[in-house]
């Protein structure tokens, strides 16, 4: 068979998502997320909503569950950063549809997080992934951007009063700034008011401990799990 024949075969058999029953559509959305197909994810999201799925059910059972598969394969070295970014981009398409609907339903937030990349650093791929996965897990996320000096972190903590402060860095040269922020929080007597989570490619658990963070998150899925656990512990205390 020639390549052109194969392409024609696929063209002829293009999948109509509306014809799939719910369970198969969700399975298909897992595949589409895995393959980073943003338009298909948006279409699948709309179809499920038209079938009277609640926005939170679409989010959890289709998008978040699909991204969990991506997360596991990333951790296992089967997928790499480009594929994860592509999947995240697809999920973002679904989130854009769901976000206003979730706000309308007034679902109670699991917790609130302020997140930003530290001063001197413009890298935000990891931060954005964490922000999106946290939002998907039901957290209210206030993303204050990149190159954030300590004053801006403190201002955001004062203004938004989150449960969690998240700090990200990609550079070995910028990651020590996390200690500057945490030490300043200590000086101001507000360190224990917040859960501080840190992450970024060059970081590790020892570094997280050394700067006085509550947790080091090696990836977005770990950040979500850690955030849920720590917020639950804090609220129970």
């Amino acid at each position, binding site marked *: 068979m020639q390549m052109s024949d194969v392409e024609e075969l696929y063209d002829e058999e293009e999948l109509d998502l509306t014809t799939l029953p719910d369970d198969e559509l969700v399975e298909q959305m897992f595949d589409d997320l895995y393959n980073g197909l943003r338009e298909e994810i948006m279409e699948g999201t709309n179809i499920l909503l038209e079938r009277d799925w609640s926005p939170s059910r679409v989010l959890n059972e289709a998008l978040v569950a699909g991204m969990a598969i991506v997360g596991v394969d990333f951790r296992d070295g089967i997928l790499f950063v*480009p594929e994860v*970014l592509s999947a995240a981009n697809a999920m973002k398409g679904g989130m854009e549809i769901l976000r206003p609907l979730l706000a309308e339903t007034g679902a109670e937030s699991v917790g609130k997080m302020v997140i930003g990349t530290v001063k*001197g650093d413009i890298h*935000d791929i990891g931060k954005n992934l964490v922000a999106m996965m946290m939002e998907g897990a039901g957290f209210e996320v206030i993303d204050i951007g990149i190159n954030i000096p300590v004053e801006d972190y403190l201002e955001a903590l004062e203004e938004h009063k989150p449960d969690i402060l998240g700090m990200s860095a*990609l550079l070995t040269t910028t990651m020590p700034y996390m200690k500057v922020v945490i030490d300043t929080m200590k000086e101001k007597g507000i360190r224990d008011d917040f859960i501080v989570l840190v992450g970024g*490619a*060059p970081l590790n658990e020892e570094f997280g401990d050394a700067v006085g963070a509550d947790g080091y998150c090696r990836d977005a899925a770990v950040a979500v799990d850690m955030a849920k656990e720590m917020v639950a512990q804090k609220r129970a205390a």
Partner: protein
Amino acid sequence: MQLDVHSEPQAERSRKRACKVPQSIREFSDQRTDASAVVITCSALLREITAISRANGWTHLQTQSISAELHNFPEKIPAAVKQHIDAAKAKGQQVFVAYGDCGTGGLLDAMLEEEGIERIPGAHCYEFFSGGERFNQFHEDEIGTFYLTDFLVRHFDRLVIRGLGLDKKPELEPMYFGHYRKLLYISQSDDEGLKRQAQAAADRLNLTFEHYAGGSGDLGAALESFNRRIAVELK
């Protein structure tokens, strides 16, 4: 925009010219087993180290390189370097590590401290190719700077475009480069062809282009210092 940055003092320029890298030198690991010292490095630096070593007649110096692609998995760098250190120590060789921290978050330095091995200071190769102080200035001048060296220009398509998956997923480009404003080519050689390629890379990423002739930067001095030290120890 194309801008050459040539503001260093004359003496410094002369020293860098003396370390100019011949184009004929290919990337390879020197497999000699009788060398009394070894430089463990990244393949991104091998060409320059080999050139400096040959230019100075350091026949006692062997090079061992590790693939630059390990930068995508920095957590694996310390173990890869350690493997070469173990092999060198088993042969009784003196060891120098010409590697940046390269995103290991201090793990490389922690391992080297335990092993008692010296490393060229700096977080990245483009930092010691430009010199620490000057690199800090570059970073302060424009935080959104994407750096290329000769090696990275030569392998731009493989390591940057294909390495980041941009050949297949061009829609990811804003996610990777959205906050970058400038591409700074820190050259080791005086090669107009590479300069044109670097300019093309800047155009490809829609970044303004600047060029700084860094020569071997701090690398030549670091290797010289290592050689002086082992010369005393080997006596």
